[in-house]
């Protein structure tokens, strides 16, 4: 198996008192080891549901998910979800504390590497939004996941910090050689960060289209935005979103 994870014909129905609701109709996708991919789609299309199913936080109705090996999955949420009563160091250690693999040295190393050394003993309220998001990423990275799931990780930030933080997060993920699946409704963000983009249809979702994002001079997300291929993919995905299935 060449891919780290293969998602096959995932279907998800919810039960409510007003009847059954179809959230995901039929979604299949493959993610290569070491790649950064994005899943885009309009809000409410079932992106988060898909991510939750991959993470094992929700059950699927049918379909299957194959992993290359027994992999560890890390999850990064929309909000940093830091605990205000813990220091930055203790917050970054929280994941390991829960999984009972406390490794203070490794977490300190990560904080040091990603510019948070001076803030280890500070509390979250003393940090900027971007720094908090970095601590949240380190909390997840500390558990040494093989696959990172990013659930709209920058959507709580203002536009300016969004660009900068997405750049930071991308660099960290690449430096740590992690495979990542990000969901976002921001097409520009998806193109600038990913090597592949999966487009989901409106709910109940099916996989509408798949794009290999090929950029000759690919570099950091911010710089990618000014490459000629960027606007090419941007226009194409926008056009495809409105296209009927």
């Amino acid at each position, binding site marked *: 198996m060449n891919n780290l994870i293969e998602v096959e014909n995932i279907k998800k129905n919810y039960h409510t008192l007003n009847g059954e609701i179809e959230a995901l109709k039929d979604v299949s996708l493959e993610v290569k080891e070491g790649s950064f991919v994005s899943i885009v789609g309009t809000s409410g299309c079932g992106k988060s549901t898909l991510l939750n199913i991959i993470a094992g*936080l929700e059950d699927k109705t049918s379909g299957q998910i194959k992993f290359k090996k027994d992999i560890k999955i890390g999850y990064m949420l929309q*909000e940093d*979800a830091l605990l205000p*009563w813990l220091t930055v160091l203790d917050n970054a250690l*929280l*994941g390991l*504390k*829960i999984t009972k693999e406390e490794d203070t040295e490794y977490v300190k190393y990560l904080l040091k590497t990603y510019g948070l050394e001076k803030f280890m003993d500070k509390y979250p309220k003393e940090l900027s939004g971007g720094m908090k998001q970095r601590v949240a990423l380190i909390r997840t990275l500390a558990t040494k996941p093989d696959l990172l799931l990013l659930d709209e990780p920058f959507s709580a930030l203002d536009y300016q910090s969004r660009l900068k933080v997405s750049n930071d997060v991308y660099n960290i993920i690449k430096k740590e050689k992690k495979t990542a699946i990000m969901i976002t409704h921001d097409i520009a963000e998806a193109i600038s960060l990913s090597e592949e983009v999966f487009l989901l249809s409106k709910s109940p979702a099916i996989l509408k289209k798949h794009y290999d994002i090929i950029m000759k001079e690919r570099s950091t997300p911010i710089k990618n935005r000014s490459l000629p291929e960027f606007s090419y993919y941007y226009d194409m995905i926008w056009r495809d979103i409105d296209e009927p299935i």
Partner: protein
Amino acid sequence: MSQSDFIKKYKRNKRFIKVMQFLILLSFIVIWQILSSTNVINSFIYSSPYNVFITIKNLAISKELFTHIFTTLSEIFISFVLGISLGLFIAILFYECPTLAKIFDPYLTVLNSLPKVALGPIIIIIFGANTKSIIIMALLINLIVSIISIYSGLKETDKVRLKMFDTFKATKWQKLKMLVLPSAYNSIIASLKLNISLTLIGVITGEFLVSKSGIGYLIIYGTQVFNLDLVISGIIILLVISYILYKGVILLEKILIKTY
């Protein structure tokens, strides 16, 4: 207006309030004394500051005063601690089993709205005319409110943080210990203030019903033998105790509450 003028004005206003507060108390005592000394009011019924002073002094000399205060305070302490710990325990149980909470919801609502004094006679029959009944009475009054306020504090735990714990496959116990309880910490501390007032009501009600000692007993006994000096002395002692306890809890809250 300069900054120093502002501070001066602020301080002056604060001092004025303190002085006025003291003057109201002082004039109340003075007028009360004058009215009873000049027989405008019947001092047998309305007592007088002097009589109250003498009554309390005599109670103190015979050491009886301290026995009564000690009885009431220990009943308050036991009921307060029991109310908070049982309240916390039941609230956690409800939080962990929402179905249980839903089953008991109508019973809590009914019990909360029932004037608990009405249960007094039954409590005495079941538990006897002793301290146990007084504590049960106080618990009935403070427990329901403790459960409700702590439970709603636990329920306010941030949903995103709960999900974050799920992504690390945290157990229920880990979530409770590392997230839910620390999140609700401040609202639990805030419920102490409500609890102490209710405990006082409960204990004094209980003492009215059954006791052989305590401030509530002092007041009821005074009424029975028509010693109104004793009744009013009892009320004044109670006033001082409540004030000190309330201030104590506020101080405790200030020390314990955390700001992030």
